[in-house]
């Protein structure tokens, strides 16, 4: 259950115990700073489904390094992703998130280090790895002149499969757009379609690179639901994001990356708790911290480009 939802439920039950009417409770909520967006975000996201059994490691990254000339984009990263979890890679721009993701996907060659996905070495068994992963790239577009169904069929053919395109589109609630072209879709629809295409091969691991960047709050919540649905089926999801609330809601564990290194890795709740244990407090009414605090505490406040 998300932290916000928990707080909301707490707030309402406190109010009920104090004998307040619904109307009074609503007014008290507004007075306490609960705006429309907070309410929506607390309620729109369904409670996280029971986490499937985590049986072993599905991704194993060891001492990963990527250098571009003298610039070290990724500087010795190691981590494991457990089967069935949603794993977040967080970090400011230029921290090395996308580079790390693209090395795991086999799109970029590491300068040093090893990566195993589903027990296969990405460097040596690139093709086998490509068969078990689904990839949504940051701002990737598809072909002009083809309908959504035709694109799904085309991608399925690349894996030597045939799929029911309508089923996949229904999964991402785009069945009524089946005959449209990608350029006719909204930002959120494009991202959902991109996820549908990434699912054509029923991947073991789904990679999402900043799936909600540039989306409005509604479209973001919609996508969160989709990610949770995919997770509920037992698919492992690895995503990058700039949004701490997103990480808090979606991710079982996160790695915070800065300047090519992992500076923290744990569940969002554990990271928040450890920050609070260090004596952190916020000068506001509710003294609980959120992931945004953890993030900024760890990576500093200065703007990165």
């Amino acid at each position, binding site marked *: 259950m998300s932290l916000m939802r928990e707080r909301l439920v707490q707030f309402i039950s406190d109010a009920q115990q104090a004998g307040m009417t619904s109307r009074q409770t609503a007014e008290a909520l507004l007075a306490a700073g609960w705006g429309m967006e907070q309410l929506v975000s607390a309620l729109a996201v369904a409670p996280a489904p029971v986490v499937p059994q985590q049986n072993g490691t599905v991704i194993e990254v060891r001492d990963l390094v990527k250098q*571009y*000339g003298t610039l070290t984009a990724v500087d010795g990263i190691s981590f494991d992703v457990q089967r069935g979890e949603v794993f977040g890679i967080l970090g400011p721009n230029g921290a090395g998130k996308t580079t790390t993701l693209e090395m795991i*996907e*086999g*799109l*970029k*060659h590491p300068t040093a280090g090893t990566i195993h996905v589903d027990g296969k070495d990405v460097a040596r068994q690139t*093709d086998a790895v*490509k*068969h078990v*992963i689904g*990839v949504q*790239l*940051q*701002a*990737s*577009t*598809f*072909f*002009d*002149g*083809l309908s959504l169904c*035709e694109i799904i*069929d*085309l*991608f399925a*053919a*690349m*894996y*030597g499969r045939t799929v029911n395109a309508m089923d996949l589109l229904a999964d991402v609630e785009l069945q009524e757009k089946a005959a449209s072209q990608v350029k006719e879709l909204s930002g959120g629809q494009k991202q959902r379609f991109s996820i549908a295409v990434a699912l054509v091969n029923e991947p073991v691991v789904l990679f999402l690179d900043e799936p909600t960047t540039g989306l409005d709050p509604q479209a973001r919540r919609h996508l969160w639901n989709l990610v949770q649905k995919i997770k509920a089926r037992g698919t492992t999801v690895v995503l990058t994001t700039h949004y701490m609330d997103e990480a808090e809601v979606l991710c079982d564990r996160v790695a915070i990356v800065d300047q090519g290194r992992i500076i923290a890795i744990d569940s969002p709740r554990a990271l928040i708790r450890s920050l609070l244990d260090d004596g952190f407090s916020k000068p506001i009414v509710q003294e609980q911290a959120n992931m945004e605090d953890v993030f900024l505490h760890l990576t500093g406040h200065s703007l990165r480009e």
Partner: protein
Amino acid sequence: METFLKITKTTALMFVRNRQALFFTLFMPLIIMIIFGLIGFDKPQQYDIGVSVTAPQPQTQQFIDQLSAVGVFKIHQAALGDELAQLKDGNRTVVLSMPANFIDGAGTNTQKLTVYVNDSQQAQAQAVQSILTQYLDKTSLALAHAPTYFSVVPQHVDSRNLSYIDFLLPGLIAMSVMQMSVFSVAFLFVQYKEKGVLKRLLATPLKPFQFVAANAITRLTVSVAQTAIFIAVGLLMLKATIVGSYALVLLAVILGALMFLGLGFTISGMAKTMESVPVFANLLVFPMMFLGGVFFPLSSMPDWLQTVAKFLPLSFFSSALRDVMTKAAGLGDIKWDLVGMIVWGIVLITAATYSFSFSEREQ
């Protein structure tokens, strides 16, 4: 294999649905061909000749009639002042002023025929003068009752007349196959690269060469279709005649398309953005349109230019097509053009493999 068929089919679908590409690869060249076919550049040139006669005589009129019989002369007869005004306006190549007693007086003293020449048409005027001089020489000999020792008997060996449309058709086929192959590939693949489509494909098990081959096969098919449409329009609408083997036409078209597909992929490797594609493409394609023997033969160029122009990829292509279509040339006759295309094909496809890649260059 099934994968490859599906991808090729989808690639073809994308090509056909791209109206802009269809317009530039088919309709534009077809319109050029129809316009050129209708203008008819192959009509023989005519020289407008003004004639002014001071004192008309039956023999003078006879002389003028004989001049009119020369196919390339168009005779205008009027007063000298009027004709000279026409000459000034550029409507006459030369104006002749016939003296009185033009023929009668010829026996006693040399008659002077004054020829006014338009300086802006000197070359044509010279041609007219030499015809006139020959004509007068003949008349002199006839007047002197001199026997005829020589005569020229024209014998038509080439049973068919090569019209301009016959000349143009193979050139236009070569040109549009070139444009289709270069532009449709260069624009599309730079767009794919820019928008991250190629990177997305790289994340699938599809091999890049499969995707490139699917696109190449689509375009080879399109180039054969283009050729068929051009030949059909040429034969049915513009009364072109084609004498050679269609199998050789097909061979030349496929070699030509392969060679220019290589150029297209080379350009899409060189161009970083969509905006730079037309710069590269036009730099390489545009000069070839004029130097590659499409609209006029290489022999009409200065010698130094010919030596350069005849080694252009398009020159080999248009020359092979033209020799087959207008002269019924066989495989042996066009072997050097084919060799030229194969060498260019190897050079350009090799350049493409170095220049073009699915993944972004990592410094």
